[in-house]
């Protein structure tokens, strides 16, 4: 029994980091906004890393899931806010719709794109993302290119006070929950047969098949998990928090690139990596935006290049090597 618990020790530093972030944001005035931004990057990195870190497949179209999650929540609020008796159930419906849309698209993408490898997979995912965006705009579904504005509907259903609390606290708080959930699922997968199967897939997919591993099944599990968590982040941090959605704002590859940066900075395939990467990226982006607004990308690009060249395994990769053979080893994964 002790053995089983000690396998999950690497979750301790991750949860500790999230808890400290939460406490800082909650009790220090004026910090909540920044902490929420950090949690957003940590959650996205952690979710994206479940698929990329474990399988080695780089999903450039990951933002599709975040966008569909946003749309799910937006649809839920827009269409169900008229039923006032639903109360908070409106948001539950929104979240269910978000997860439904994301899993639909994840399974479809898994069916089409997971047959491809390497660059072809990445390109197919970008294609699906762009295709979906232009489909929504062109077919004029869900408001077409004008999107949906449902802040008014939200106000009507919950009243000013509650909406204020929902958008400024609970939306961000749920991002924390999703980040922690992502970390737990990632850890659980790493320690189960899924993790071993995906290690085999990452290293040599054909040999894995010969070893009796149903590669498609395990890849789909990781893809779906990663996508659903992303949809959760989208539903809360974009949908509920902002009260509007435009296809041009959400189907943007830029956000996938941010996921990649966060994960590579921290360490791909590690548990703590996305947290550290999310903190470094989020903090420096926030800080650079304050001291040199408009120049942050110009400064950030070379910093990223330097870190990736100097530490290809990310910060946690370095840390793991440092701690090898010490007592602390079992806390870092």
């Amino acid at each position: 029994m002790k053995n089983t618990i000690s396998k999950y020790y690497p979750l301790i530093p991750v949860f500790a980091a999230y808890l400290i972030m939460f406490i800082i944001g909650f009790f220090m005035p004026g910090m909540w906004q920044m902490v929420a931004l950090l949690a957003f990057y940590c959650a996205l990195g952690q979710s994206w890393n479940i698929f990329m870190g474990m399988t080695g497949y780089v999903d450039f179209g990951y933002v599709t899931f975040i966008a569909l999650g946003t749309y799910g929540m937006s649809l839920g609020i827009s269409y169900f806010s008229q039923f006032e008796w639903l109360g908070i159930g409106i948001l539950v419906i929104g979240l269910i719709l978000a997860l439904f849309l994301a899993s639909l698209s994840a399974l479809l993408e898994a069916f089409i794109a997971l047959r491809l490898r390497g660059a072809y997979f990445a390109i197919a995912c970008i294609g699906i993302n762009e295709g979906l965006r232009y489909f929504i705009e062109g077919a004029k579904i869900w408001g077409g290119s004008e999107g949906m504005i449902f802040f008014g509907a939200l106000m009507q259903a919950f009243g000013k006070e509650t909406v204020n609390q929902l958008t400024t606290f609970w939306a961000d708080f749920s991002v924390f929950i999703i980040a922690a959930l992502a970390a737990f699922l990632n850890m659980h997968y790493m320690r189960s047969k899924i993790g071993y199967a995906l290690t085999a897939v990452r290293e040599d997919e054909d040999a894995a098949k010969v070893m009796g591993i149903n590669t498609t099944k395990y890849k789909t599990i990781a893809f779906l998990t990663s996508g659903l968590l992303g949809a959760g982040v989208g539903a809360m941090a974009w949908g509920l928090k902002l009260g509007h959605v435009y296809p041009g704002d959400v189907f943007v590859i830029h956000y996938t690139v941010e996921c990649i940066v966060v994960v590579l900075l921290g360490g791909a395939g590690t548990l703590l990596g996305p947290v550290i990467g999310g903190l470094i990226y989020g903090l420096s982006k926030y800080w650079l935006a304050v001291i040199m607004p408009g120049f942050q990308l110009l400064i950030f690009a070379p910093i990223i290049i330097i870190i990736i060249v100097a530490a290809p395994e990310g910060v946690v990769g370095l840390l793991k090597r440092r701690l090898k053979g010490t007592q602390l080893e079992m806390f870092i994964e």
Partner: protein
Amino acid sequence: MPLLKLENVTKRFGGLVAVDKVSLEIQAGELIGIVGPNGSGKTTLFNVINGVYPPEEGKVFFDGKNITRLPAYKRAPLGLGRTFQIPRPFGSASVRENVAIGAMFGTLADKVSVDDSLEIADRYIELVGLEPHKDKEAGTLTPVEKKMMEIARALAMRPKLLLMDEAMAGMNPKDIDDMVKFLKRIKDEENIAIVSMVEHIMRAVAGLAERVMVMNQGAKLIDAKTEEALTDPRVVEVYLGHPTDKSKWRSEVWKEGKDWDE
């Protein structure tokens, strides 16, 4: 009932017939060698047996079940293990994890947990003598160690039939003898049939297999007792070439000490 039965298996790559109407029966617990020069279709035959690609014609039966169209990952749990000519370890995982992956998805797949698999792995790592390298990344092993690790990984699958692709290529005579002894031992201990594929190291074949199938240009040339097969004139011809009239004439010329062009 034979453990593995091939019926007129043919595999083509475009116009090239890589495996040409090969039939073969292997009994449970048997040790058989498949021999043939480079390009004779041995590896392709292996790939057809364990499902890397389906044959164009013919049928493959395993344990009485038609597995001709079964995908590779469904064959391993039935009891088909395999090692590769060039070892294919899961490089970033440790030796222990590699071998555990074998146990996890082999014939015991539904019965063992991750912890059980790691225990099974320890046993087979000890069997192949990789104990000191247990926690090393598999990618950092030497080629021979990688081969031993692959054997441990395949054995941990608890197969009924183990396909070994050039297990002894690149080894020195002493290592080959050790390997032959080792394979015979595990065959009896684990009660598995072994098909060992060998390109040209006759030392390995002669010591190992009771029965040999010789392949040439995709087709089965002979399937007989080892001694019989290796001394068969057709087999000698495949390896050493046909004694043409010209070469005979040349050797006579040579003996008489005459000039070549005469």
